[in-house]
């Protein structure tokens, strides 16, 4: 029995769940059927300054993450060191990206699971204040991405070495005000998602996120897990393996042979002691505690992160609005191989490039957060559906879909 004959709705990209019981044995497959665009192939032969823009096209929901992982990898390959100001602007981009992406996922994709909404227009008719809040939050986040990188979807001026054009101090001041104006909305979002009834389901797994030694995960860092992994990002090939499955265009990633989890729940499980003050206080008063092994709590972790990254964005925008100065963009100093890592909304993202002395990219390798989560999601689906095997098909479909959505998968990313 395939519980879907069509693609799962309200997720990024095209996939479905296969579920069958043969001779009493449960069979579950996560079938990712997104068309392959073969990004690793088409980025070869391109100039390093084009690649961050091109790689952002992997995903229209998290283009900033791909842009910045590429920029960082190319800089490491070409021996380019960037200024603290550039790093701060990039962190501002990541903060906005995560707010915008999480808000989209929570309100427009996932909320329907908990509010009983079947059509987009019903959401607007029944919960107009929720839609308005979502529009306000996304509006401020998008404005920030537009001002810093040139456009809300697919950044323009973020290239190896820094920025082709810098925002003005006045713009940054406005952005800080903008983020302050949505703090109330962000907190209400957290309160809403803290009040939902999440399915009771737990499965112990390994959580991975980036650790820069100081901050809540965002830009750069070592690959760290709750089970003792702590390695430099450039060594990722020694630990992460991509496995081909004949029923999926996306490769399934494993960590030392087993499934693992990245994304909001992993970041909050590992580093909740590094959250900004308002987010930390909200978590303290929340009946749901982290670390959590309930994958549905990823929704709540995302809501919490919205508050954290809004606080972060205010901090950065305020500081830069007084310190911003024009800078020379550093240039390529060598040929080489470089790895770049950032926290995308859906988790740790890895880009690796080999760049020639001429500045042309020769080799490319990408591992996306959804690619990393696939094995774990399939294992979770197996456990959840096995536990519910005797329930009617409609129920199985509903819980499988809710779980799939709670992962906030991005199948365009995972197949790329």
């Amino acid at each position: 029995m395939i519980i879907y004959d069509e693609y799962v709705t309200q997720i990024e990209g095209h996939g479905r769940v296969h579920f069958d019981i043969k001779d009493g044995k449960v069979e579950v497959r996560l079938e990712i059927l997104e068309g392959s665009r073969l990004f690793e192939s088409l980025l070869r032969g391109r100039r390093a300054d084009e690649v961050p823009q091109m790689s952002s096209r992997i995903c229209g929901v998290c283009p900033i993450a791909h842009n910045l992982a590429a920029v960082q990898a190319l800089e490491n390959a070409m021996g380019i060191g960037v200024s603290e100001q550039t790093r701060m602007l990039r962190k501002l981009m990541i903060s906005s990206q995560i707010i915008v992406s999480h808000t989209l996922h929570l309100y427009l994709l996932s909320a329907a699971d908990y509010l009983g909404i079947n059509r987009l227009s019903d959401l607007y008719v029944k919960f107009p204040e929720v839609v308005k809040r979502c529009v306000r939050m996304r509006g401020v986040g998008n404005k920030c991405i537009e001002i810093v990188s040139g456009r809300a979807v697919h950044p323009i001026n973020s290239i190896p070495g820094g920025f082709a054009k810098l925002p003005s101090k006045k713009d940054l001041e406005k952005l800080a005000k903008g983020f302050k104006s949505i703090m109330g909305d962000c907190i209400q979002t957290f309160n809403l998602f803290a009040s939902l009834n999440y399915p009771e389901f737990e499965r112990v797994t390994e959580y991975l996120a980036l650790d820069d030694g100081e901050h809540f995960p965002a830009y750069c860092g070592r690959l760290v897990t709750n089970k003792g992994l702590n390695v430099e990002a450039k060594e990722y090939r020694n630990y992460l393996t991509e496995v081909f499955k004949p029923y999926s265009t996306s490769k399934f990633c494993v960590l030392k042979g087993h499934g693992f989890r990245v994304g909001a729940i992993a970041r909050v499980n590992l580093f909740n002691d590094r959250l900004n003050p308002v987010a930390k206080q909200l978590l303290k008063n929340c009946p749901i505690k982290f670390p959590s092994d309930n994958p549905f709590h990823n929704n709540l972790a995302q809501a919490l992160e919205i508050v954290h990254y809004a606080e972060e964005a205010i901090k950065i925008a305020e500081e830069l609005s007084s310190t911003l100065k024009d800078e020379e963009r550093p240039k390529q100093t060598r040929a080489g191989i470089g790895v770049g890592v950032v926290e995308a909304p859906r988790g740790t993202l890895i880009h690796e490039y080999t760049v020639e002395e001429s500045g042309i990219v020769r080799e490319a390798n990408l591992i996306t957060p959804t690619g990393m989560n696939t094995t774990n999601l399939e294992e979770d689906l197996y456990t959840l559906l096995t536990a519910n095997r005797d329930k009617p098909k409609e129920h199985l479909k509903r819980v499988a879909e809710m779980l799939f959505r709670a992962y906030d998968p991005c199948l365009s990313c995972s197949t790329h």
Partner: protein
Amino acid sequence: MIWTKPKVAIFDLTDCEGCEVQILNSKFIERILESVEFLHFRFGQRVNRWEEFDVAFIEGAVITSHELGLVKKIREYSKLVVALGSCACFGGIAALNNFIGIEEAKKYVYGENADKIEILYIKPLSEIIRVDFMLRGCPIAPEDFERLVSDLLAGRISREHTRPVCMDCKSKGNPCFLLEGIACAGPVTYGGCGAPCPSAGMPCDGCRGPLEEPQMSAELELLKKIASKDDVIRLFRKFAPLAPLFREAGGEDR
């Protein structure tokens, strides 16, 4: 005729879904939610119906045989079909593999499993089904989408823009890249985007494809003086690589 509550469908094929995100980013999103009925919108809602669509938006490139069948079915159900974004209009970034060679590209990514992955030779949507309007761009400009929706609600289809990106760029007061010796596709590219790239300090990369009757040979003559042949190919084969004139801009297909 003024449309009241037109029945709308939005479909996504192989792509990044960034044009759909631009629709959700529209400042008119609340008005859109009030004034149209979404019959089919997989990304945005779970209950979807196949009934006659007044207008269907198709985003993305046709890469699998499933998608090939799907777009033909959509055409049968739709009064109007709009190609949403440059993947639908001009093959988009994935169509670069047409030039690399799909077999070679697959092998690079999937190695020994390459044979198990189906990827069609990419074509613009208009070469597969009849397309009534193209919303160009990677991603689409929200203003173009808003203009089209207002026009549709008023019972007409938007006129094509007839100006190059240079007109948008000049009105923003940007310095000219070409005058500074930097390759830019602005003079031959379909305008109306508001020139976000030059305004952000980067030259136009032609993501909206060519405007009608562009001065292509003059542009290529000029580029010859400031850019290598490979860089000219890279400029036009990026986000709208199958657009007429752009695909040949670097010489023969290769």
